[in-house]
């Protein structure tokens, strides 16, 4: 074991040189590089934090915008719903009015047709009735139907009560005698005589033939009417038919009105 002091001195110098060289070529560059890398990493981290913050702000902004859009959309939808409801009600009302109008029109047409039908029925019945009565009377007696009607009027004139008779005698109006058939001269004379005798001698008599009586004879004056006419019977007959028709019509109408009420109730529930 020996120490060469020259070598020791040389090694000390060598070591110090090596310290310098390594410091120059190893420690300083590597340390600097690591420091720069750390700095860059720190910068990047900072940058990424800033980006994250910016992204967060952007996200919040978009979130708020989306919420506003949703609120607006809800408002628009609500408004559209209200408008649709309003429109629906208007359409329902219009349809109901139209249906009511159609029903009224229909009812009017029905009424009209029924009136026409009743008129025709009345005429037809009167004709048939007249015809049958004529034939019946002809079969029963050998006198004409007109003669019987005239006799009936004459009989009524004779049986007049005092009140009616007084009214007829006091009136200034001409006494209108209407017949459904033309009177021959003999019958006219008979009628005039009867009236003059029974009511007043100077009574003014107007004779007229009125087909609307169908089959009959009547005397009209001072707001009173005397006579006999198949029209009276037929009027009663017609009113009876009306009554029957009305009673027959009331039942479906009641049913229809009940249905209508129920329909309104459904609408109200739907609304």
């Amino acid at each position, binding site marked *: 074991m020996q120490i060469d002091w020259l070598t020791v001195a040389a090694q000390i110098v060598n070591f110090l040189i090596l310290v310098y060289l390594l410091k120059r070529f190893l420690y300083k560059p590597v340390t600097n*590089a690591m420091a720069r890398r750390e700095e860059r990493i720190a910068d990047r981290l900072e940058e990424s934090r800033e980006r994250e913050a910016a992204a967060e702000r952007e996200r919040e902004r978009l979130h708020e915008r989306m919420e506003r859009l949703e609120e607006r959309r809800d408002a628009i939808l609500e408004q559209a719903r209200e408008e649709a409801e309003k429109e629906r009600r208007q359409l329902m009302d219009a349809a109901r009015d139209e249906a009511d109008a159609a029903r009224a029109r229909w009812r009017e047409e029905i009424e009209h047709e029924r009136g026409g039908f009743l008129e025709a029925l009345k005429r037809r019945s009167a004709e048939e009735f007249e015809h049958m009565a004529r034939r019946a009377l002809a079969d029963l007696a050998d006198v004409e139907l007109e003669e019987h009607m005239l006799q009936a009027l004459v009989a009524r004139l004779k049986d007049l009560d005092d009140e009616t008779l007084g009214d007829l005698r006091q009136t200034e109006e001409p006494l209108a005698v209407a017949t459904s058939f033309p009177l021959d001269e003999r019958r006219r004379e008979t009628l005039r005589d009867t009236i003059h005798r029974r009511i007043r001698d100077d009574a003014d008599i107007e004779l007229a033939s009125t087909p609307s009586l169908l089959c009959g004879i009547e005397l009209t004056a001072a707001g009173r009417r005397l006579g006999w006419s198949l029209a009276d019977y037929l009027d009663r007959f017609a009113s009876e038919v009306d009554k029957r028709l009305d009673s027959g019509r009331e039942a479906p109408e009641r049913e229809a009105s009940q249905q209508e009420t129920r329909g309104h109730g459904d609408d109200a529930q739907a609304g």
Partner: protein
Amino acid sequence: MTISPDQIVLWQWGALHINATLAFTWLIMALLTVGSWLITRRLTTGPELSRWQNLLEVVVTGLRDQIHDVSRRDPAQYLPFVGTLFIFIATSNLLTIVPYYLPPTGSLSTTTALALCVLIAVPLYGVLQQGPLGYLRHYVKPTPLMLPFNLIGEFSRTLALAVRLYGNIMSGTVVVGILVSLTPFLFPIVMQLLGLLTGMIQAYIFAVLAMVYIASASSASRSSGPQRSTGS
């Protein structure tokens, strides 16, 4: 049998001579310097590193961490001295696997030179850190009676540093030399592997002990300063 590379004189001119110790030391110096220069001339600061740069960064970072662990201070000022101690000794020891190479650390002259460097560096760092008086005061602590013992301890640990490293490395070389002459196969290789391990451990011990001495001298005011065993 050659025990020390000092004995191999390559060139001599009067009293001056160049022996194998110096030659191999220069070789190691050239290797380290050129290698460092080649790698560090193209350093990148991006996330992608070359493998050599990565190696250097691992070495430097490891040294800095070790120094920081021991001293609890910024390692920048200690790194060149302590780091060079470790790298030089480690390289010197690892190259023993190269045939015909004799480690300079197997020479008592080299280890003595390194220990003397530590002997000088310790008060130097202490004075730099605490001032001359502050540094000298710790020789008379806890009592002036301890002054001779502190001085003896200062030199004896330097001697221990030098002899420990020299003994370990030289013995490894000698053991391999003896085994080669006795059982030339297999056993010398095993011993050489063991020598690599021993060499790395010795480099670590030498550097850490130097750091401990420097740290204890630099932080005398801190009674809880790092204390390490000086035994090997």
